């Protein structure tokens, strides 16, 4: 990682070090599939560069999301990678090979490209559209045809139905599926996607994102994905590069770490409110220590239940059925007020979470439960324990402390944790 004495950040006017310019965000691992080295773009007739000395690694098999406010140069950066825009400085490496000077058309045949406006050829059938790159690469007819059918299947469109249709017969969502299939045509190792789902309605977009993640899970392509939507970035990215003006990297990291610790006010503002809440998506119940909760079997009887409740000092008791599945919440009033069996008093347990649920889902379960805690049950529905709100705040604090430690190791000072947690014990100081 970067040596603070040479590549260390500058000191800002407020005494804090300023990340961004001069910060070495490069990934240490050797397996960067795409590497930009000091890449710049200055348009003729302008003095301000659109992209300034950008050094960026895209690790192989990962989705890197470039995200930033409009006009920050993220699309320009993407288009520099496949040289749709020729850089005016710096070098671009593709799988370790310098491609700054190779024939750009030849290069682009090995880089899938998906744009927001899709740009299917209106005069060609779907099959012909998907086959464009394979044909240019000289694939034989049978191989091309098999590949087209495979890709249509992959994006969830029945080849026998869609193969011979024309783009104008497709809905927006279908068209972009074809856009993705076409980009994957000749199985390129790299995919560049410029706001691919930006023009699609929210419901379809969500489905396409999920399907895309499913496909990516299988294919493990190296993907650079541009969006202006931080939520999409968090959802799609293995890593996120948050860009400020002139495509300067403000923060480059996993979504989890960015959400745990936005490195400065710019990133903080860009993520907006709810960073901690969004960060809960990256932690799972199985990572937490579950709390015990007073439980009784459904046939325990009121007297025994009362004793358990008294002994626990809690307000509520959890009733389990004969297979240890949580069924009801019961409090003292419920038991005092009626002689009915335990399974008929109190409140039904409506939501439980499984150990692999995210903390976000867990919080949701917590909020909809009358007792303020979420019940964890295994995949057979058997009671495992509960998660209480304190455990969540601890988890958030822990993630932040981990991120803080990571950045300190990188030689970057970060601002103090944003004041979302009033608990002083959870402050990052605890991690030092």
């Amino acid at each position, binding site marked *: 990682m970067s040596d603070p004495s040479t590549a260390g950040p500058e000191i800002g006017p407020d005494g804090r070090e300023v990340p961004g310019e001069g910060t070495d965000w490069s990934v240490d691992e050797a397996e960067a599939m795409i590497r930009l080295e000091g890449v710049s773009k200055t348009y003729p007739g302008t003095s301000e560069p659109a992209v300034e000395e950008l050094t960026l690694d895209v690790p192989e098999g990962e989705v890197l999301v470039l995200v930033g406010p409009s006009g920050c140069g993220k699309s320009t950066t993407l288009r520099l990678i*496949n040289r*749709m825009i020729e850089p005016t400085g710096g070098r671009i490496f593709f*799988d*370790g*090979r310098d491609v700054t000077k*190779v*024939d*750009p*058309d*030849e*290069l*682009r*045949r*090995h880089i899938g*490209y998906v*744009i927001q*406006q*899709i*740009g*299917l*050829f*209106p*005069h*060609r*059938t779907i099959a*012909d559209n998907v086959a*464009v*790159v394979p*044909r*240019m*690469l*000289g*694939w*034989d*007819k049978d*191989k*091309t045809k098999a590949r087209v059918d495979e890709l249509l299947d992959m994006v969830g469109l029945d080849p026998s139905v869609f193969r011979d249709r024309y783009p104008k017969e497709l809905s927006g969502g279908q068209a972009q599926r074809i*856009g993705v299939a*076409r*980009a994957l*045509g000749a199985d390129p190792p790299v995919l*560049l996607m410029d706001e691919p789902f930006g023009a699609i309605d929210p419901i379809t977009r969500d489905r396409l994102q999920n399907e895309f993640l499913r496909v990516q899970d299988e294919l493990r392509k190296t993907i650079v994905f541009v969006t202006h939507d931080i939520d999409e970035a968090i959802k799609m990215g293995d890593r996120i590069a948050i860009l400020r003006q002139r495509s300067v990297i403000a923060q480059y990291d996993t979504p989890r770490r960015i959400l745990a610790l936005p490195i400065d006010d710019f990133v903080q503002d860009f993520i907006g409110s709810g960073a901690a809440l969004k960060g809960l998506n990256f932690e799972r119940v199985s990572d937490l220590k579950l709390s015990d909760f007073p439980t009784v079997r459904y046939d325990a009887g009121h007297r025994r239940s009362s004793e358990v409740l008294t002994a626990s000092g809690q307000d509520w008791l959890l009733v389990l059925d004969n297979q240890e599945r949580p069924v009801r919440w019961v409090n003292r009033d419920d038991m005092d007020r009626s002689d009915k069996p335990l399974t008929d008093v109190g409140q039904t347990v409506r939501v439980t979470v499984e150990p692999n649920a995210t903390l976000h889902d867990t919080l949701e379960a917590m909020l909809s439960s009358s007792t303020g805690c979420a019940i964890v049950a295994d995949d057979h529905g058997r009671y495992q324990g509960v998660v209480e709100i304190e455990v969540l705040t601890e988890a958030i604090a822990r993630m932040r402390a981990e991120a803080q430690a990571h950045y300190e190791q990188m030689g970057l000072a970060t601002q103090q944790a944003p004041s979302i947690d009033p608990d002083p014990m959870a402050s990052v100081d605890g991690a030092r």
Partner: protein
Amino acid sequence: MLNSIESWLEFMQDDRDELWQLTIEHALLVVEATLAAVVVAVLLGIVVQTRPTARNIALSITSVFLTIPSLALFTLFIPLLGIGRNPVLVALFMYALLPILRNTVTGLDSVDPAVEESAKGMGMTATRRLFQVKLPLAWPVIVAGIRVATLLTTGIAAIGTLVSGGGLGDAIKDGFNRLGLPNSYEPIWAGVVLVVVLALVFDLLLALTTKLLSPSVIAGIAEAPDRLLAGRKQTSFEQEPSNV
């Protein structure tokens, strides 16, 4: 009235060999001039479409051609080309340029920028983008321009008779010279009707061309070399050893 139609039909019948001859001459003038104009105007259109200054100049000059009175244009070339078919061909060629050029430029303009962007992004060379994407998509608009040019030149070609260019103008001039004498209107009407029929035939043929040669067919033709080479091609990119 019935009388004159009868005598006209009689004239058509009697002079059918000569009229047929004139019609063929006329058609050839139109076809040759328009074909030359298609080649020049489409090429010019492709070249100037993306260059605003050149494009304005080309469109202005060809517009000027169209405004030169035909009578003058046909005779202006006599010092250079003598009389006969040649000055007629040149004049018709000049008239045909504007509609074809303008429609070529408009047709190429109408190609969705996203389609061009994605074509380029997939690694299609400029030539491939032109022949497999832009020209096929612009083709219907270009053919519309060719249709206008053909109608225009079919009508104007009749003036070619003034420089001894031949064609149906000869029949019209023949009647004109004998105005007042018996049977002077018959050849005039014969010329007019045959010019109109010829124009309709051309238009029909071009309409058929548009139908048969749809953008997808054109693109398929443009792609033929790729299909022939399928399975036999190796790209330089793949041959180069990776230095990892």
